[in-house]
Structure formats: structure tokens, C-alpha cells
């Protein structure tokens, strides 16, 4: 596997002039990867700090909305003396096409990374055509 140094991470804040914000705190666009395997589309979303019970995934028509809330409770008795990143909630939405079998979408969370598994609908799955010998 290729080796690389120094990952970069930029937290993009969702500014209030782009959309109406409800709820307390700051909201951020979590970074995500989308890739395709023969059977599925998979979305990986980095949501560090969000615990599994604070993640909400909604599917409305063709829009998949992911919200993750992050608790800052751990900091209540502490004084922050140096700060390089902001803590905030996560929001992102994806528009999905008919190529996805919407009834079978699965979600998993591990180590702050949410994986959404979107199975492909039968009609877009690659089909192998066997050549028959006559």
C-alpha cells in the first residue's frame, strides 16, 4: 500500500447564510468518502465525538440526511487553555438515485466513522454473461 505523510483535516463550518440553523451550537460538514463495490455504494463519514445514540439518519424521498450531535460535557469541569479545533455537530445530506435499493440501507458506526451501506438495485448490478459453447 502507498505510504503518505501528514493527513490534513479542515473543518468546514456551515454558515448561517447558507441555510437556516436550528438548535444550539455550531454545525460542520463532516468529511466523507463515497465508493462503489460491485454490490453496494458505500459512504464513510468522519464524525469524531458523536456517539451512536446521537446520530440520526433520515431518508426522505431521494434525500439521505445525516445528523450527528456532539456532546461537550467532558469539558464542563475543565479550563481550555489551548485550542486548535472546534467542536460542533455534524450535518450532511446526500441525494440518492434509483440505483439504490432504499429498503435495505444499513448504517454502522465505529471509532467515529459512520458507514452507510447502500445496496445497488438489481437493475444496476453488474451482470456476468456466460458464453455457452454450442
Amino acid at each position, binding site marked *: 500500500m502507498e505510504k503518505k505523510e501528514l*493527513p490534513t483535516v479542515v*473543518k468546514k463550518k456551515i454558515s448561517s447564510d447558507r441555510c437556516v440553523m436550528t438548535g444550539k451550537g455550531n454545525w460542520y460538514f463532516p468529511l466523507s468518502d*463515497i465508493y462503489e463495490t460491485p454490490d453496494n455504494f458505500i459512504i464513510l463519514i468522519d464524525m*469524531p465525538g*458523536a456517539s451512536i445514540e446521537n446520530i440520526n439518519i433520515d431518508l426522505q424521498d431521494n434525500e439521505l440526511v445525516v445528523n450527528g450531535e456532539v456532546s461537550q460535557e467532558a469539558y464542563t469541569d475543565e*479550563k481550555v*487553555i489551548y485550542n486548535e479545533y472546534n467542536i460542533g455537530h455534524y450535518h450532511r445530506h446526500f441525494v440518492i438515485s434509483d440505483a439504490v435499493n432504499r429498503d435495505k440501507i444499513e448504517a454502522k458506526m465505529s471509532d*467515529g466513522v459512520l458507514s452507510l451501506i447502500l445496496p445497488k438495485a438489481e437493475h444496476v448490478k453488474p451482470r456476468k454473461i456466460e458464453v455457452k459453447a454450442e
Partner: protein
Amino acid sequence: MGLIKWEKPDPLDNLTHIQREMSDLFDFLSSTPQMEGYVDVEYPPIIVSMNEESVFVRAELPGIKVSDLDIQVVNDILTIKGERKLTLDPAKISYLRRERDYGTFARSIVLPEKVDAEKVTASYKNGVLTVNLPTAPESKPRQVVIKKS
């Protein structure tokens, strides 16, 4: 040094870009200090906090195996080393969008207090690393009793 993502330029982008620049400028001029946009920070970005007993160093490191992290305390310097691995084989899948970065990293910070290196603990939960460094007894505030003579 941070890497900057390259985006394909679009002539129309220039207009929106200027608009954004202007709006950023106005934001900047009318600001309350801007806390956003730590582009050049080292990886991982950290938050250092403390209470009476300990110094806490936290870092957002989503999707890292605990075995790929190496944390050391020497005197009052904390070093966090590790690697965020690409768990997928790019030859077997096809990416449609890629934003999450990977790679090896290492950074050291000088701690604000003397710490008890023996008692340092670290935990990793929901992708956030927390290092708990109890302050050494000699750097805790000591009440001085004034004796009347």
C-alpha cells in the same frame, strides 16, 4: 505543512469566489474573533484543557486503530504518533468522492505543567483520543500556613 486540495477551476467560480471573498472580508471586519479556518495546523489538531488534578489533551482521530497509535511522555513533552491507514484497497473499489485523508503523523507538545509520567492514561472513544496527564505533586498549588511568632 498542510496540503491544499486542488479543485478544478470553473470560470463562473471566479464570480462566486469574489463574492465569497468580499463576504469573508466583511465578516472579518465586523468580527468577533474568528475561530474558524485553522488550515495550517499540524495533524492531529488538539485541544488542551486542565483542571486541578490533570492536564487533558484531546484530538479528533476518527477511524484509527488503537494499535496504530503511539503515545509517549518524556519529561514534560507529550508525543502523539500514529498512522491513519487506508483500510480499503483502491484497486478493488472505485471511488466516487474522496475527502477523508490518510497518512502517518507525529507531533509533540510541551505540557503546561509538570506531569506524573507514571500515571498518564489514554482513552479512545467515538474517534476522539483523550490523554489524561495527572499533574505532578510538586506543581500542584500548596497552601502555605503562616505561623504567628
